């Protein structure tokens, strides 16, 4: 090898994959083509056709770049996404650092609570947020009453940044925490022996080593905010790209290709962002070998540090959980209108949803766990193929899966109907009317979350451990099963939890695909309530049920993580 250093390595690498790996890559590619690329292509090909005829053209893109509104939207989307990453980091860093780096009572609880903002049930979460932070929300009514001024939390682009960073900071929290737990204690000890401590130790050693986790979370926040349409629409901000696409795709009777053109731009921008974040980590090694100690050393806080630490955590949690508190109040409220608190309280809303919610809960649990399961299997497989093999075009798997983040749910929903409704089972029922279609749509939509988590986890594992296993005679698949997956466990769980819980409250694709009430998940039930004045309370009650359900599952998984950390022999 060393004799011909420059030319042969690429050639030699090409055959570095085993037949099993090639088969796996092909299977995943086929799955993604079938359930992501093909359905979406049937919808967005319009972006490339000429008006009136069906000939290929790029004139629509020319129109896009010439329209002031779209250019303004593009810039706004970039600005909002970047600022949301900044603020999300501000919320996430202290929570992640304090709960993993110190002996922190209730760390699992903090991790769970810090995770809740991600589970914002559609519609009702927005109402609750307005009731708290809106122009005439509780906070502003009280401020106005006491001090005679109001704060525009939810106005314009800054409002979008505020809501988005609260909503999506858990992406950073969960991925960064998983990464911090994976940082080898030996590195820290070595640095301490060399005289580094305190913030410098964090800045120079611990945080850089956790970089894959942070970047996984930050890139998710960026892309998700870039592609999210619910929050801008809730705040009536229309000059951003995702809402523009959505408004156009879903207007009745308008046959304008612009909506799909914007979708293509969103997809390209998202994949580019993912590619950039991958570039940022390229050429550096984040893997650490010795994992016997298992994770960072946990320090005991001095009383002053404790006051500061708990104070910060409580402050952040109070801010990010205010919407959920609002939701809880709303679910017990009779009438809540232009007042800091509801007029009176009742249990009637829960009574109303009690009878029918069990079927929704059952469906949600089945759909979301299946989707989460599919996602981590695909996530681990793709991460492994990309990071550990030299297959040609392996990155395309990653980019294809990540592109799912940018596809509006309604486009995916329409694509599924278009692709699978014509396909029928022997008895004539369309394939698209089976509930498994909903599961597949959810899995595809949430795959990027699990993928990023698995990817980050694998980046932190040194390949030498696998080589050692193989040297001792283990086969590739046995190595993956017995060495790689167990070491990735934290990341995999993080991925599952993110995919599971966000799938549990997904609506836009679901709304297209639900065929009957008996197959409907919670989010659909919520939607059905939230279209009338009288349905607000029951909708909120159902929202609380959804949040508690997902929170319970999350808490459980955090307990499992902690147990497994202890089992690995973490001394402190």
């Amino acid at each position, binding site marked *: 090898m060393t004799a011909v250093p420059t030319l042969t390595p690429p050639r030699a690498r090409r055959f570095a994959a085993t037949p099993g790996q090639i088969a796996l890559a092909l299977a995943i590619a086929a799955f993604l083509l079938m359930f992501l690329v093909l359905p979406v292509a049937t919808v967005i090909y319009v972006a490339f056709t000429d008006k009136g005829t069906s000939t290929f053209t790029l004139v629509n893109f020319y129109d896009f770049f010439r329209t*002031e509104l779209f250019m303004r939207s593009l810039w706004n989307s970039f600005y909002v996404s970047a600022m949301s990453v900044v603020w999300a980091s501000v919320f996430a860093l202290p929570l992640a650092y304090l709960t993993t780096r110190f002996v922190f009572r209730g760390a699992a609880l903090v991790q769970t609570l810090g995770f809740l903002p991600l589970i914002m049930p559609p519609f009702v979460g927005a109402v609750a947020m307005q009731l708290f932070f809106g*122009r005439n929300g509780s906070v502003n009514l009280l401020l106005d009453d006491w001090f005679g001024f109001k704060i525009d939390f939810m106005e314009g682009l800054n409002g979008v940044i505020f809501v988005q960073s609260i909503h999506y900071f858990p992406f950073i929290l969960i991925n960064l925490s998983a990464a911090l737990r994976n940082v080898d204690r030996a590195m820290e000890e070595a640095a301490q022996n060399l005289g580094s401590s305190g913030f410098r130790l964090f800045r120079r050693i611990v945080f850089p080593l956790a970089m894959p986790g942070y970047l996984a979370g930050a890139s998710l926040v960026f892309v998700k905010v870039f592609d999210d349409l619910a929050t801008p629409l809730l705040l009536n901000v229309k000059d951003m790209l995702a809402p523009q696409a959505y408004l156009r795709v879903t207007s009745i009777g308008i046959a304008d290709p612009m909506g799909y053109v914007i979708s293509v731009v969103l997809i390209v921008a998202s994949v580019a962002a993912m590619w950039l974040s991958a570039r940022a980590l390229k050429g550096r090694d984040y893997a650490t070998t010795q994992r016997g100690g298992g994770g960072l050393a946990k320090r005991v806080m001095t009383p002053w540090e404790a006051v500061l630490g708990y104070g910060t955590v409580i402050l952040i949690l109070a801010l990010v959980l205010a919407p959920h508190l609002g939701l809880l109040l709303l679910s017990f409220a009779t009438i809540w209108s232009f007042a800091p608190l509801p007029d009176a309280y009742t249990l009637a809303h829960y009574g109303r949803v009690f009878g029918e919610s069990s079927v929704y809960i059952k469906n949600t649990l089945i759909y979301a766990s299946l989707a989460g399961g599919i996602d981590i299997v695909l996530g681990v497989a793709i991460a492994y193929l990309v990071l550990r093999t030299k297959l040609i075009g392996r990155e395309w798997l990653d980019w294809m899966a990540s592109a799912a983040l940018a596809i509006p749910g309604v486009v995916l929903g329409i694509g599924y109907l278009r692709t699978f409704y014509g396909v029928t089972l022997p008895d004539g029922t369309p394939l*698209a009317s089976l509930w498994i279609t909903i599961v597949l749509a959810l899995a595809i939509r949430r795959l990027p979350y699990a993928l990023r988590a698995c990817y980050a986890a694998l980046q932190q594992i040194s390949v030498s451990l696998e080589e050692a296993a193989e040297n001792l005679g283990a086969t590739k698949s046995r190595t993956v099963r017995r060495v790689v997956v167990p070491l990735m466990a934290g990341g995999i769980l993080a991925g599952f939890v993110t995919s599971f819980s966000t799938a549990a409250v997904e609506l836009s694709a679901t*709304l297209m695909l639900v065929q009957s009430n008996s197959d409907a998940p919670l989010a659909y039930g919520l939607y059905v309530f939230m279209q009338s004045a009288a349905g607000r309370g029951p909708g909120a009650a159902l929202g609380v049920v959804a949040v508690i359900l997902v929170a319970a599952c999350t808490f459980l998984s955090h307990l499992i993580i902690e147990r497994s950390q202890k089992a690995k022999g973490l001394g402190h």
Partner: protein
Amino acid sequence: MLNRRVALAATLGLSLSASLATIALAQAPSGKVTVVTSFSKDVTDPFKKAFEKAVPGVTLEVQNRNTNAGVKYVEETKSNNQVDLFWASAPDAFEVLKGKKLLTAYKPKATGIPEKIGSYPINDPQGFYFGFAASGYGIMWNDRYAKANKLPEPKDWQDLAKPVFYDHVSIASPARSGTTHLTVETILQGEGWEKGWRILKEMAGNFRSITDRSFGVPEAVNSGQVGVGIVIDFFAFSAQASGFPVKFVYPTVTTVVPANVGIIANPPNKAAAEAFIEFLLSPTGQEVLLDPGIRRLPVNPEVYAKAGADYPNPFTDPRFQKMIGFDVDKSEARTAVVDTLFDQLISFQLDALKGVTKTLHEVDAALAKKPNPQAKALADEARNLIAALPVNQVQAGSPELRGAFTGAKEKGARQAEIESQWASFARDNYAKAKAKAEEALKAAK
């Protein structure tokens, strides 16, 4: 108690539908009938219960989708259609379905329903969809909000353009909400194309927000985030029935428009679909509309005898008799143009429009204290600049322009090109108007 009964009925209905799904006879209505609807549970549950009682052996399977998603759904699944009925407010959604040949014609047997409500034909003349309830458009406001902000009670559209309502009014985008589209079209027809747009833009200068779904407006008014909303009446009535501190008024220029139901082309259970339409139009079905959670106006005049005295009756109430004649064909021909104009001139330029309007309000306040003809003239110039339109009434209804929006097969201007032109027209005019208004303010002070 009532709630629990409804829930119980729904659960029973579900289990019934499972057991009855297998039985499908050709003629007598039985089995499962599937309806795609944009109506909320508060509307569909009472109907489901009453229908299943009136026509035993049939279960109503409700698929809730917003109107847009519903239309797309029916369109995408037509190759293997499993849906019997489409049931929603906006007549334009039915027009789209009809245009794509996705509806079946039918002739209802129900009697006692007049040809027209107000001046709007209740049924589609070709018999593809049928009005079952009427609704009027108007202004809804939150009483607590109005008291806290010292807002007067609005009576007419023009009132909403007054300085006192600045930043207090909300509307749904007509491109997104079929009902709001009709409100806008009603103003345009009632006041004329030029004057109508002038009023709309003057009102729009006071808008707090333009939401992307119809229910977004009443929701914001109910919770007190916005003071005043331009809504369809039942949103206000059902909110009142649920106890929210809201009030509602019909302005002088308004109209009542039916909410509709139609049979999908090639329905799996035609007999039951027809039975559902007959039920909706029967006195029993019409009475369900009086339910406090629904509160829509029945299309059968006799049913009003069972309603309370304060229930608005479009067949006798003089307010509704004055309502303007609504030209459905005219509206139809320019739907996309009106919606796009609204979006390009108002929705996407709202900040600029509000900026000028605010300055003009200040000019008015200064002029009230100290009259100044020069400032008045400048302010009027600014107002004319705001009111200017890139297309006149004839152009708006022209087939060429229409073709640009509805994907006409022939070559022509692309929608994006036209939109871009209109947007820069509005942007330039608002900027000029802003300069004039500033000048006027200086002169007036």
